[in-house]
């Protein structure tokens, strides 16, 4: 069995590989970092694009945000037309299993800056702010900005904080000098004159501007053209950041990642969902939606029979509970209750699964941000899938497998 520990987050500059032709990751097979010159050699110059052309490209491709919420980028541009917004690159990547955005910012920062600066120019915004949680990404973006004539418009902000601090509205508050917490009122970053999108979203836009709508649609599906990045980890021989055509079947990715005997996958990150490792699941927004899940933050974690899946679930649920900002009562009290329920389930307490499902329903939709909703989805999808394990823990004192920690928590670089 090919198994490696889920420690890929220890070195985010590690392996990148592709299924099909590399677009966003182009050049990274030959270069540790694409500086201004190797970037131009690899991608060519960026064609000028005014707002009309950008909107035409975005409408044709349907490019959506790659940070988790999946909001169409064209709608954000339209909302801010005529407002000269600040463009914010969200590189905080607070999903513990995700490293794709840091790989982009550290290794191909010019591609991200190309996309962000193109938006700033088209909307006549003055500045591009790149918000990151780690010093290495900050240094790489500063170095890249210093290498380009339009780099004086780029500011890099090193923001701190946990899981919910990466949420778009929390990040906008932090950049304004406020707390890195989601606000209680319904509002969007666009309400603050800020165009915020995830780092991969801007890199994909830079690819789209160069390729044009038709060549961009040479790969992917009809409704979701192009590629996506996934951070692949867990019980695989080849963990790393993978670029693949949207709509690629899960089985192809599992084989390419050298997953020996995959049994379960966690898709979308820790606000995502658990699935049986069914090879036919299409890795696209609509494909995962059809399977009852989400592409979310672009994470794919594989579990095999080497580890106790319920124990893995309990570790992550406890981590998610600890990451609650504690602002909202149902999340503050409900997530720790949910974590205790899953722990009780591991210990074979009868009725624990029913109580956990009840607590998951009790927190769903009852917070300022989507942390309780995402946590509820994560736990509920796992409990529906892990009924055999639940039986073993209830009647036989456990499944006999150790908890290997294939689902990484915390310890982000």
């Amino acid at each position, binding site marked *: 069995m090919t198994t490696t520990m889920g420690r890929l987050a220890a070195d985010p500059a590690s392996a990148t590989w592709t299924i099909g032709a590399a677009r966003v990751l182009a050049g990274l097979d030959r270069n540790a970092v694409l500086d201004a010159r190797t970037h131009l050699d690899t991608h060519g110059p960026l064609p000028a694009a005014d707002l009309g052309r950008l909107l035409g490209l975005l409408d044709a491709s349907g490019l959506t945000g790659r940070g988790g919420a999946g909001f169409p980028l064209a709608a954000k541009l339209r909302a801010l037309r005529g407002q000269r917004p600040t463009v914010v690159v969200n590189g905080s990547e607070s999903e513990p299993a995700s490293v794709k955005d840091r790989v982009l910012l550290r290794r191909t920062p010019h591609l991200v800056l190309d996309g962000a600066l193109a938006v700033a120019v088209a909307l006549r915004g003055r500045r591009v702010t790149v918000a990151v949680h780690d010093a290495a990404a900050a240094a790489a973006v500063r170095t890249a900005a210093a290498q380009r004539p339009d780099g004086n418009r780029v500011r890099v902000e090193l923001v701190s904080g946990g899981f919910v601090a990466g949420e778009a509205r929390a990040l906008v508050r932090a950049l304004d000098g406020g707390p890195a*917490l*989601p*606000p*209680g*009122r*319904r509002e969007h970053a666009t309400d603050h004159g800020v165009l915020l999108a995830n780092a991969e979203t801007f890199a994909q836009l830079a690819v789209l501007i160069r390729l044009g709508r038709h060549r961009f649609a040479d790969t992917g599906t009809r409704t979701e053209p192009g590629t996506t990045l996934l951070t692949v980890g867990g019980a695989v021989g080849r963990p790393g950041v993978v670029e693949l055509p949207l709509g690629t079947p899960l089985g192809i990715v599992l084989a390419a990642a050298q997953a020996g005997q995959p049994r379960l996958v966690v898709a979308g990150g820790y606000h995502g969902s658990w699935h049986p490792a069914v090879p036919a699941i299409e890795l696209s927004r609509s494909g995962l939606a059809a399977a009852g899940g989400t592409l979310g933050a672009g994470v794919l974690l594989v579990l095999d029979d080497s580890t106790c899946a319920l124990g893995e679930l309990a570790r992550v649920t406890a981590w998610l509970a600890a990451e609650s900002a504690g*602002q*909202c*009562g*149902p*999340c503050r*009290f*409900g997530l720790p209750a949910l974590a205790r329920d899953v722990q009780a389930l591991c210990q074979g307490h009868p009725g624990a699964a029913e109580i956990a499902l009840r607590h998951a329903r*009790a927190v769903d939709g*009852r*917070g*300022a941000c989507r942390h309780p909703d995402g946590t509820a989805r994560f736990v509920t999808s796992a409990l529906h899938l892990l009924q055999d394990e639940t039986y073993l823990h209830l009647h036989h004192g456990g499944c006999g497998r150790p908890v290997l920690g294939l689902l990484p928590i915390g310890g982000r670089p």
Partner: protein
Amino acid sequence: MTLEIDWTRCDGHGLCAALLPDRISRDEWGFPVLHGTKLPPDTAVRRAVAACPALALRLTRT
């Protein structure tokens, strides 16, 4: 009108549930559970909104 809770403000005092027992109950931690959010802006609803000591309960026009 839509009844909304600002969860960052709500401390679970429970006045809203006491004033609108048909529309609002409380979960096991004391926080309000709304039974439907689309409401006619009647006097009882406005009184509950005004009574919230944390200013967490709101009526919005949608």
